[in-house]
């Protein structure tokens, strides 16, 4: 009986080993879930470019696939589960609204690695990743203060989550470092992508005396309005200069590719660990589009600031930061930033509750 058991165990081991080597001979499957079409010319396309870089650099060992236009909610759970079942070993879920679904599916598939963009919930097999977009906002704040004649920028925003709030604050801190009396007018459009609303907001802001437009929404509409009026603005998420060649000063570009390559490699090497990745100019998850349509000295200043932030990611907050009511915000670290729910001094807008 014992012998039989041993033989059975041995056979099982051999089968397991054979299965193991067979799957090792296959390519590793890396998968993505997009909230929009893969060629939306914006957020999802940025992630898809990252996926293509993985194909290009690791194509001999890795096979990629994606599911696009996945609604946030129960549909996302089904799609993520399907990917896990179809043999994906690492799955990138690229929208905030996929957070709970990612966590739920991850609990069922402990051997699959999950990476969720922009969320805050992790698990042993779930990492979160995001870019330090605020770093770019500090630079464009400085440029805006140098370029604006009226000393007023218009700022179009989507929803008051900490990432957006920290963007507004850092923009203002950058502008104040050049012009302490700089003003910003804020319009909430409650959407990430709505060209009509974004365009109308840009018109209204220009009509109210702003002469430079900043956006934390994804369509090129505000820049196009700036182009029509001979004024300036900044691209969001990717280089939008083709839409507004004379208006775009620079753009804060998402650059997910290197991160994706690194993480897929980590799965290949068996070194993948759960973490909260928050990378910026230094790691090139965030890059600045060429500084155009501005005098040389402003471009030189922007490049200089970019180099400084590359060396010191928290540079924008090194000075004393005052809240809107004038109280001291105290030292600012990653934790404070990720839960930011207050404005800095000088912002003339009621904090949305």
């Amino acid at each position, binding site marked *: 009986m014992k012998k039989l058991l041993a033989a059975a165990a041995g056979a099982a081991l051999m089968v397991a080993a054979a299965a193991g080597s067979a799957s090792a001979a296959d390519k590793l499957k890396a998968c993505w879930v997009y909230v929009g079409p893969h060629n939306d010319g914006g957020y999802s396309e940025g992630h898809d470019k990252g996926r293509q870089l993985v194909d290009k650099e690791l194509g001999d060992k890795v096979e990629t696939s994606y599911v*696009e236009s996945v609604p946030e909610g*129960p549909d996302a759970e*089904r*799609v993520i589960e399907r*990917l896990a079942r179809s043999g994906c070993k690492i799955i990138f879920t690229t929208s*905030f609204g996929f957070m709970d679904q990612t966590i739920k599916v991850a609990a069922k598939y402990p051997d699959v690695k999950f990476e969720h963009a922009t969320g805050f919930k992790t698990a042993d097999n779930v990492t979160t990743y995001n870019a330090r977009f605020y770093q770019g906002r500090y630079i464009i704040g400085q440029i805006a203060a140098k370029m604006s004649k009226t000393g007023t920028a218009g700022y179009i925003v989507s*929803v008051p989550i900490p990432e957006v709030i920290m963007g507004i604050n850092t923009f203002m801190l950058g502008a104040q470092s050049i012009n302490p009396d700089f003003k910003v007018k804020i319009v909430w459009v409650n959407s990430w992508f709505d060209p009509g609303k974004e365009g109308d907001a840009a018109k209204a802001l220009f009509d109210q005396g702003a002469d430079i437009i900043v956006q934390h929404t994804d369509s090129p509409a505000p820049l196009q309005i700036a182009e029509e009026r001979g004024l300036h603005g900044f691209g969001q998420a990717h280089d939008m200069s083709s839409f507004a060649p004379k208006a775009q000063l620079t753009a804060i570009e998402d650059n997910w590719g290197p991160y994706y390559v690194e993480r897929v490699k980590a799965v290949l090497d068996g070194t993948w660990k759960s973490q909260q990745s928050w990378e910026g100019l230094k790691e090139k998850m965030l890059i600045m589009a060429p500084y155009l349509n501005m005098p040389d000295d402003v471009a030189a200043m922007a490049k200089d600031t970019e180099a400084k932030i590359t060396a010191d990611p928290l540079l924008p907050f090194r000075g004393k930061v005052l809240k809107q009511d004038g109280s001291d915000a105290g030292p600012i670290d990653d934790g404070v930033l990720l839960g930011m729910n207050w404005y800095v001094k000088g912002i003339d807008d009621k904090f949305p509750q």
Partner: protein
Amino acid sequence: MRIELIRRPEHSRTMVVLSPIIAIALTVIAGFFVFLAIGVDPLQALYIYFIEPLTAGWSIEALFVKAVPIILVAVGLSLCYLANNWNIGAEGQFAAGAIAGSVFPILVPGWNGPEVMVAMLVMGVLGGMLYAAIPALLKIRFGANEILTSLMLVYVAQLFLDWLARGPWRNPEGHNFPDSRPFDGGQVLPVLVGSDVRISLVFAVVAVIVAWFVLRRTLTGFQISVLGQAPRAGAFAGFSQNRMILLTFLVSGGLAGLAGICEVAGPIGMLRTTVSPGYGFTGIIVAFLGRLNPIGIFFAGLLLALSYLGGEGMQIALGISDQITRVFQGMLLFFVLACDTLIYYRIRFVRTGQHPAGEAKHGRA
């Protein structure tokens, strides 16, 4: 050369039943050539689209999860449409049900025993009913066009939900993200089988059976179809048009509201700024695909759910764009409507220049 559609004096009963099946067959054939044209093995693609989702337990579960809200909505709508009431605001009634049903778990989070679910479901149904009563009463009192009022109320409900989820009902511990607190304990709809199919499937099946029984076996069902097909005849028979407007709107609103709260308390597990990827509108398609017959709607709902799952499978396995899913749904509807038209009309080719005398023209295509 001109083509005319001539109404058939009588239509075939058999064809009424067969037409959806013919439409599906035509979709498969047309799909075959679409795949051929984009350079994909058509048999493999059709297998992945229509068959593969039915070969694994988990994806059959997913099929029911996706189909249940659509079926609930569509069954209610079919009663409305049979009575000639064009409620196209189920999406708003769905949201209203989700909001009303979430009142207890959000405002009284500590109440999470099993009894709270009953209260939530009742609230959800009432929310949907009250919201559907608005276009019904506007139609009864002022003769307002219910297509316009019910559709426009969709946006009102969606924006109200958006405001609630971002504002007063936002989870205080949610990092300012626009979601409510997650439901827990008895606030979550119990699972029926597997890990995802919830008791909402029972509600859908019961709704289908009750609707079928009412339509086939009761005076109310008879009134619905008489008033829908021949309002004057119904009036002479003493049937109240207004009573039927209110009744069908309340039933369809209640079912949409039930679907809404089941979705929020089930697969979603919290109130969010959007709670439906368009189930209220998909329900309209499914109601017609199922020939306004509750049993037909049950299968039509499963078929449409299958088209979503199949579309995802093709993206994963073959790298085909999700637009193909839309193309398939479009083809399916096109063929269903085309087959329907041919049941009731025949085509006649008329040579231009010749005007058949003494015959009225019924329209042109």
